[in-house]
């Protein structure tokens, strides 16, 4: 193109470097805030915050909320809200706990620890979550009841359906294979983690390469090659760094000894074993990638954002916005079921209060991650980062020894402040 875009003319060397790399400024800001937060807590706790062990724990604690937050982005982008995600998680968890501890072993006679149990259980959970979500979506999309009301009702209904089903009892222990989705019970180990990390690096570099080629094919201007190289370097370093940290967290020697003793062997001297990437984190990453592709590269995603930007325009463009609402809420329901798998597997049982207040954490994660309640704006990676920031704040304050009421006061204040900063940022940059 001979004409240059007005924004290309922006002066300043620092700005132009970010521009050449085509990095998202808001994302950089959030990462910056997160890094400052982590370093601050690390200093305040005398170096206990940024240990492999704590980082490992932080990631597995974040997964459940982060998975639901990716779906909440779509809900909020289309100008709705879902207050029932925590309750839906509880119902899914209750149904799955009963499926794997009572229905499959006793009623169907599969017995405990049958190889089918975890998979049938997860399928049942997904079906329940998706159906309830779709029903919510039907009430909102076709019967035009405001999402706030439908899901406020749903918050009471599904929290107590879960209670009613289980008579309020804690159900456990859960299936051993099922519990591998929970975090520390299921990790890839050092070698597996490195393989996954290297595959991820290869995938990322291929993605950059393919996108560059496609742009060239259409004759668009592309970033200079060195900029692509820097970007690829940053991404690779981040992925491999993350793997290295998780691999640095080793299984305690006492626990290893017990494992060897259980198998009737003696642990060799100096034997160590790393936890590596938890399966739940891998699940979150897979969902994040799938949801990002859904948001950016599919018609469904395009219609979600178009509807959020201008519902009338979407309708007049021939988009069936009612069915779209059903699809979005069904998707959120399915994600709640997956979160229920992770949350109950992490605890090792289903408890009556599982997922309590998760709706607020999930909404807060999406909003801190830059999803605008006015609709039309939001990213999946932002919501996940939002969930991570929330969890870090909470854990960090607990480690520093901040009183419980103060912790919640700070989290609440951060939520409001994050939105204020976002509003100011948008005004400055002239976005809607």
């Amino acid at each position: 193109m001979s004409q240059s875009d007005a924004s290309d003319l922006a002066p300043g060397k620092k700005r132009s470097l970010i521009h050449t790399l085509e990095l998202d400024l808001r994302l950089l800001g959030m990462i910056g805030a997160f890094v400052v937060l982590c370093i601050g807590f690390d200093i305040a706790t005398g170096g206990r915050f940024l240990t492999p062990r704590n980082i490992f724990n932080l990631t597995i604690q974040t997964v459940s909320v982060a998975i639901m937050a990716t779906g909440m982005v779509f809900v909020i982008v289309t100008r709705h809200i879902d207050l029932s995600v925590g309750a839906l998680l509880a119902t899914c968890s209750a149904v799955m706990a009963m499926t794997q501890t009572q229905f499959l072993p006793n009623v169907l006679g599969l017995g405990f620890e049958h190889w089918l149990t975890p998979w049938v259980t997860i399928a049942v959970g997904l079906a329940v979550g998706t159906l309830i979500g779709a029903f919510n979506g039907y009430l909102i999309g076709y019967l035009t009841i405001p999402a706030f009301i439908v899901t406020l009702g749903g918050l009471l209904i599904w929290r107590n359906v879960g209670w009613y089903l289980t008579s309020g009892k804690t159900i456990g222990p859960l299936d051993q294979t099922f519990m591998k989705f929970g975090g520390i019970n299921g990790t890839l180990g050092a070698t597996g983690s490195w393989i996954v990390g290297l595959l991820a690096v290869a995938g990322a570099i291929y993605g950059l390469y393919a996108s560059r080629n496609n742009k060239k094919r259409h004759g668009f201007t592309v970033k200079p090659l060195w900029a692509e190289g820097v970007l690829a370097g940053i991404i690779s370093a981040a992925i491999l760094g993350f793997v290295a940290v998780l691999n640095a967290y080793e299984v305690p020697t006492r626990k290893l000894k017990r494992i060897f003793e259980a198998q009737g062997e003696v642990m060799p001297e100096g034997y160590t074993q790393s936890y590596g990437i938890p399966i739940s984190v891998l699940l979150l990453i897979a969902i994040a990638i799938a949801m990002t592709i859904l948001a950016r590269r599919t018609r469904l995603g395009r219609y979600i954002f178009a509807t959020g930007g201008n519902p009338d325009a979407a309708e007049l463009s021939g988009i069936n916005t009612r069915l779209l609402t059903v699809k979005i809420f069904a998707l959120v329901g399915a994600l709640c079921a997956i979160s229920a798998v992770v949350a109950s597997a992490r605890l090792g049982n289903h408890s009556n209060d599982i997922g309590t207040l998760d709706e607020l954490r999930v909404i807060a994660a999406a909003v801190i991650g830059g999803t605008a309640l006015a609709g039309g704006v939001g990213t999946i990676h932002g919501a996940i980062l939002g969930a991570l920031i929330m969890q870090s704040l909470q854990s960090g304050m607990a480690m520093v020894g901040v009183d419980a009421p103060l912790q919640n006061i700070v989290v609440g204040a951060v939520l409001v402040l994050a939105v204020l900063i976002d509003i100011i940022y948008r005004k400055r940059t002239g976005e809607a």
Partner: protein
Amino acid sequence: MSTPLVEMKDICISFGGVHAVDHVSVDLQPGEVVGLLGHNGAGKSTLIKILSGAYRADSGEIRINGDKVEIHNPRDARALNIETIYQTLALADNLDAASNLFLGRELVTPFGLVDDDAMEAECRKIMGKLNPNFAKFNEPVSALSGGQRQSVAIARAVYFDAKILIMDEPTAALGPHETQMVSELIQQLKAQGIGIFLISHDIHDVLELCDRASVMKNGKLVGTVDVKDVTDDDLLSMIILGKRPEGVNVQG
């Protein structure tokens, strides 16, 4: 006369007992521009929304090239090559020009994924013809000026081989230069045999751009006249008083 491109016959629609459109019939020939005139609330936008699929008529029939058709929603209208440029422009402000241009009809890769690069390339081509100064391809349309937004809305209607084009106040938000651009575009499209319904408040626009004018008042059709036969005073009295001009052939 040849078979009309569009015939809307005896169309009625009411909202809560108000007859927004009351037994109105209009028609459109290929390569013809028919102006729809009337006060706010006269029913012209409502009538045209029935053709574009945004509303469904209570009674009456629509024929395209002589064939009776059912238009239940905007998708049906698009399938019949009816394209609409709405007064409100109907753009998703948070998306870029290409995404808006292809909204509802995205180009996809063989894997079924949205092909943004291909859409941007097509968008650059058509914008190059319509508005060569347009350069903001990677920004949300909320960052565009009124005229730029208008050219995106027009590009959307023109790109998909419209046979029937509905323009609802296309020049309302535009400066003189851009209005001139729209006039030229209408002449071009007319020459390609496209039929255009032009909704307007501006009698001079209608006299300059249209072949015929249909005037509505209070949901009813006052009449359709050849613009060559009438003066602006004639049209004004049709709009304001609902009075048909004397000594002029008035249809409907």
